[in-house]
């Protein structure tokens, strides 16, 4: 059972940023737990989530930092940008103010990450189409002008959530493949697994298995 979750060859680091209440934590929760968290509390400082995905036959572990949107945590959350391979900038399609602030988030992301960091724009709450305040076309235009990937997603229904995280990983993986992202660079946000040697992990597991649960009560 245990060989599965720890079997991966790369680690990618992500950050999720955006205004307060746009659903950053809910998107993360939907992605890691495949569940919608209805009464999600405000994030204090940072939260964290992890999941292993597969891109082009490679198992990749995503380490995802979910930051607080509140202004008063800005100093703390800024220190998490460094060394991120992927940055997801979130706004709420039903609140124009969160969209208007995108350029400020983008500036932060550009200044504090490295040039290879994949930046993905997500318009959250696509399930609330009736209350829409920002059109798809407008946001798409913004994304194109700034060279960002873009989708509208819903943390509630799960629509496009998986896709956004996976697309980001796919792009990062492509950069590794074509050599534009240097694995060894300190701030690449990408790491090889320490002992990417499945056989070794397996044998050590067997060794554990040989003294069957002597510790258990």
């Amino acid at each position, binding site marked *: 059972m*245990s*060989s599965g*979750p*720890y079997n991966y060859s790369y680690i990618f*680091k992500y950050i999720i940023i955006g205004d307060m209440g746009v659903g950053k934590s809910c998107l993360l929760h939907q992605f890691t737990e495949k569940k919608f968290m209805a009464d999600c509390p405000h994030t204090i*400082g*940072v939260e*964290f*989530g*992890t999941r292993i995905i597969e891109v082009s036959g490679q198992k990749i*572990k995503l*380490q995802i*930092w979910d930051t607080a949107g509140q202004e008063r945590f800005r*100093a*703390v959350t*800024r*220190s*998490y*940008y*460094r*060394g991120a391979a992927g940055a997801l900038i979130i706004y709420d399609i039903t609140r124009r103010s969160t969209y208007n602030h995108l350029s400020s988030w983008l500036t932060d992301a550009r200044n504090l990450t490295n040039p290879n960091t994949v930046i993905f724009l997500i318009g959250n709450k696509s399930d609330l189409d009736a209350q829409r305040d920002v059109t798809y076309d407008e946001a798409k235009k913004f994304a194109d002008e700034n060279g960002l990937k873009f989708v509208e997603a819903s943390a509630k229904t799960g629509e496009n959530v998986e896709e956004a995280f996976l697309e980001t990983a796919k792009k990062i993986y492509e950069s590794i493949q074509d050599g534009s992202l240097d694995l060894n660079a*300190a*701030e690449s946000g990408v*790491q090889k*697994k*320490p*002992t990417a040697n499945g056989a070794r*992990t397996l044998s*050590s*597991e067997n060794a*554990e298995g040989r003294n069957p649960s002597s*510790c258990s*009560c």
Partner: protein
Amino acid sequence: MACFVQGITAYISGLVTDIHNTKDTAIWYKIQVVVKDVFWHVDRRYSDFEALHRKLVETQGIPRDNVVLPPKKLIGNKDPEFVEQRRAQLDIYLTNVLQLLGRNPPDDLAQFFNLHEYEIMFMLKKLAVDIFEKGDQILCSGTPFILSPYQIFAINERMKMAVPFLDSTDKRNDFTHIVDFCTNLKQLQIVGSNIPLGRSTIIPNQYDVDLSPFKSLEEISFKMANFNKIAAIGVGRETVHRISVQNSHLESTNELLLCDTVYKSFRDAGPSHVWPNLRSLHLSNNVIKSVEDIGKLAPKLRFFDLSFNQLHTVYNLTSLPELEHVSYSGNVLSFIGCDMNVLLGNVTVLNMSQNQIENLNVFSKLYSLTVLNLSCNVINDVDEVAHLSDLPCLEVLILTGNPVASTVDYRVRALAFFNERANDISLDNEKASLSEVDQISILQAIEQARRTTLINQPRLAF
């Protein structure tokens, strides 16, 4: 809290010779390293200073002219006057080096001051590398990972700090690896301490510990912990199935199970504080006086170990319908007021060893019992065993360490009470031997005869 961001100072507080008792006459300088409200000591020789200086000149390019190490002296370097002069010069050297590099100490300097052992940032860097390399193996193995309250405190503090994780040299020491590991860790052991860490003034149990980074816990164990300082234990409410607390001065189960709430009683806390999956609770070697509300807080409990506490009475645990194993070993139980079945219900394994129990009548109706350990009590009379003779499932009975165990024919007489089941009972880890079986049947025959006569006698009297 010790974090270099707050500034490091260091000075030589004394001289030490022959620290390893090897008749070595070398002089060691005892350096006191101070970071905010804590300090620690390291002992370094002149040659250590020299090596440090060489590395700093190489890697950090520190200016040779400003930061000068006092020169080497081959002869007469133990002369008290010279030593004192050198001490003063080295003191100045430390001040100068820290002025230049203290805000962002390179690894060589950190090692010289043992920052990896006491200072939050370097401690976590070291932990991150360990976890990056062995974390997955630890998670696979199912063995608990041990952390001290000071380490968890460091993790909590680090998350709040506005300082980037990466140093440009090594991605293995990224703090993210620690948080990743904590998020996925299932078995955590927290080992506290009330004595200072190493040669520092850091007392681990005085630091606040917030367990919220641990989101997948199934088993938590605390040793010598300080529950006044532990927050967010409820992070594991849904997932934890085993908790063990040892030597932690725990006074009640509520202190543990409601430790993250303002309320210390279930009546005020409410159903959101229930531990729905808690199956085993091991609370040996504490000072538990109350297990109030346990049935409400941990309704699925199966194993309940209350050994070596200060319990005077057996609590009513019938509110725990799934309870199987109970240990009250090593308490101060003497007189138990009513039948144990009223208090314990359906338990199958009961350990009452090392108490002050004299009479066994209260055990007579624990009909589900298969194992009963009564060793090291004050049972004097072998006839007390008669009270256990009707327990239909009993297989193991332990009476060693009682006065009765040294009486004549004890084993045979005790086993004889179990009538036809005598051969099925393991008494003091041994079933009846062949010769014992014979003696038991003789004893039982005599008893039978005696009863018949007793019954018949009155008739004869007519």
